[in-house]
């Protein structure tokens, strides 16, 4: 009878370990949905992600982000934006240091801390909202997102975030939105800020020259022309009788977080190879190939590298905490102390949460066209320029003079 409390303690302790270590990781929970997206089985992916995204939890934000992307791919743009708006609010609400969760993360694992999203991911939320609004032809709401992107950009810049965290694509996209609304000065400022964040954007030279001229910033126009002598100015850029077809192409999959092979407590990023590397637009006997404006993979890798120092410090502190905790228990009960040490270490694992449905790169195609209705096709190309079989066939679009029509397309293979 005297041994009963000891056995009960052991049983409860074991139950506690199982409760902690038996939880599926984020990556395993969304794996099936991601596979479904790759097979273009969008309703299946949406169905699988919905309960995860709707359940209130410390990880709700990350599931909302994946759910929003799945809805976008399924063509349910309004629902996708409802989800992204919820995610945007949630990202603000969970952006604080939780003492209890940090203490829990030291004793157990980093996943005890609520998922807050990386800085570049948080700005991406508004870029996705803007892309959906643009595709729905809702320029006013896309402008709201352009302003929101600017607010976040100013806040993160004041917080001294690094350039790769500031998400040059979102700034670039907001410039596109301003340009579509003919707010050329705002467009120029946004292109210029995108250039400051990332001067390697493939199209930025022509964007800066064109927007500086349209904004009547003569000095800057001359200055950019000297800086980018290879850019040939096209008179069609300034022809108000033409419209423009703008394709925002999301290519492939961003890298995935996995436990590091050297130390299982730390995450590492593993690139996901994609066959389709470029998109080719065919319309009205014209062919244009996409050009890269943002490398999501590079931003994710640089962000993780930046976080590495903090992660190491936290896990070292975590090991010390585990040792102290289990030693305290061991002083009272040898068996339970050993059990606690094993349990706390088994429960410790790499934080592999991330917005894993983001693309590898984002590219654009811009084509000026006379007003009218056009049939167009988008084809995926591999690194050698051959067709990969991924395509958006026989689409129809109406181009109006002085207006931009946006098409958002994603290749998944």
């Amino acid at each position: 009878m005297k041994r009963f409390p000891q056995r009960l303690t052991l049983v409860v302790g074991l139950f506690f370990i199982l409760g902690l270590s038996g939880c599926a990781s984020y990556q395993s929970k969304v794996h099936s949905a991601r596979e479904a997206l790759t097979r273009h089985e969008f309703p299946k992916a949406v169905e699988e992600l919905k309960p995860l995204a709707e359940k209130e939890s410390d990880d709700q934000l990350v599931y909302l982000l994946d759910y929003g992307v799945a809805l976008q791919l399924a063509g349910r743009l309004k629902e996708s934006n409802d989800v992204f708006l919820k995610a945007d609010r949630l990202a603000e609400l969970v952006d604080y240091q939780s003492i209890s969760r940090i203490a829990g993360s030291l004793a157990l694992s980093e996943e005890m801390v609520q998922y807050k999203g990386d800085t570049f991911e948080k700005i991406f939320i508004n870029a996705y909202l803007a892309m959906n609004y643009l595709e729905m032809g809702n320029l006013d709401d896309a402008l709201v997102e352009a302003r929101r992107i600017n607010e976040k950009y100013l806040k993160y810049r004041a917080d001294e975030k690094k350039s790769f965290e500031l998400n040059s694509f979102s700034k670039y996209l907001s410039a596109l939105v301003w340009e579509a609304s003919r707010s050329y000065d705002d467009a120029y400022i946004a292109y210029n800020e995108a250039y400051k964040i990332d001067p390697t954007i493939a199209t930025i030279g022509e964007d800066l020259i064109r927007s500086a001229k349209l904004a009547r910033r003569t000095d800057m126009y001359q200055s950019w022309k000297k800086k980018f002598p290879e850019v040939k100015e096209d008179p069609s850029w300034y022809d108000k009788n033409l419209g423009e077809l703008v394709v925002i192409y999301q290519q492939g999959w961003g890298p995935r977080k996995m436990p590091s092979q050297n130390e299982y407590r730390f995450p590492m990023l593993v690139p996901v190879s994609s066959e389709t590397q470029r998109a080719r637009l065919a319309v009205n006997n014209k062919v244009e190939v996409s050009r890269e404006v943002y490398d999501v993979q590079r931003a994710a890798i640089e962000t993780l590298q930046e976080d590495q120092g903090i992660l190491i410090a936290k896990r070292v502190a975590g090991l010390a905490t585990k040792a102290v905790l289990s030693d305290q228990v061991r002083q009272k009960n040898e068996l339970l102390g050993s059990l606690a040490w094993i349990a706390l270490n088994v429960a410790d694992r790499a934080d592999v949460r991330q917005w894993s449905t983001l693309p590898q790169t984002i590219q654009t195609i811009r084509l000026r066209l006379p007003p009218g209705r056009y049939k167009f096709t988008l084809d995926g190309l591999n690194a050698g320029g051959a067709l990969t079989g991924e395509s958006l066939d026989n689409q129809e679009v109406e181009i109006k003079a002085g207006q931009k029509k946006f098409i958002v397309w994603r290749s998944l293979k």
Partner: protein
Amino acid sequence: MKKNLILTALSLSFLTVVGCGPKAFVKGQYDDVNRENLLNDQWSETDMQKAVADLVASLMASPSISQAKKMPVVMVTGLQNKTSEHIDTQSIMDMVRVELMKSGKVGFIDKEARQDIADEYNYQNSGMVAEDSKKGPGAQVGADFIINGRLDSIVQEVGKDKSVYYKLTLNLTNLKTSMITWSDQKQIRKTFKKKTIGL
């Protein structure tokens, strides 16, 4: 001591299990719609009520309305949203219209109902409706003024401090002369402290 250990282990297990449970709103109550709402840093119904009440009072005192010899007929057009929030500007203009109508000094043209009215004219003149009760085109009243405006915002956020400034501007334009006969603005500034550390 063993008892304490058992209790601790049981508490931890309980927390592990219940921590994953749903957190639904289970108890509610009706609230006064005029009570200030500063639940979050977004445009709220309190902002709308305050801004509209002040601007409507200003408009009612303007000579275009207060000194009009006959009831001015007004049409509400769009309110431009120049903020970084998705705000239902139609709802703001609806409140402006309702508050103005309550005064009994202004008549309104329903721009939104034009298509429905045209359809109804067609129906009533299709032979289905008695001659003495049917209505037709040509007897509508034309608007004397239009009301439009713009909602702007400036958001500043540094560290845990956030300030949100709104400016609602309304204009009353005389349709005959295209002159703006009244214009006023209401400014609202709200400051917030963000939680940086919590339990």
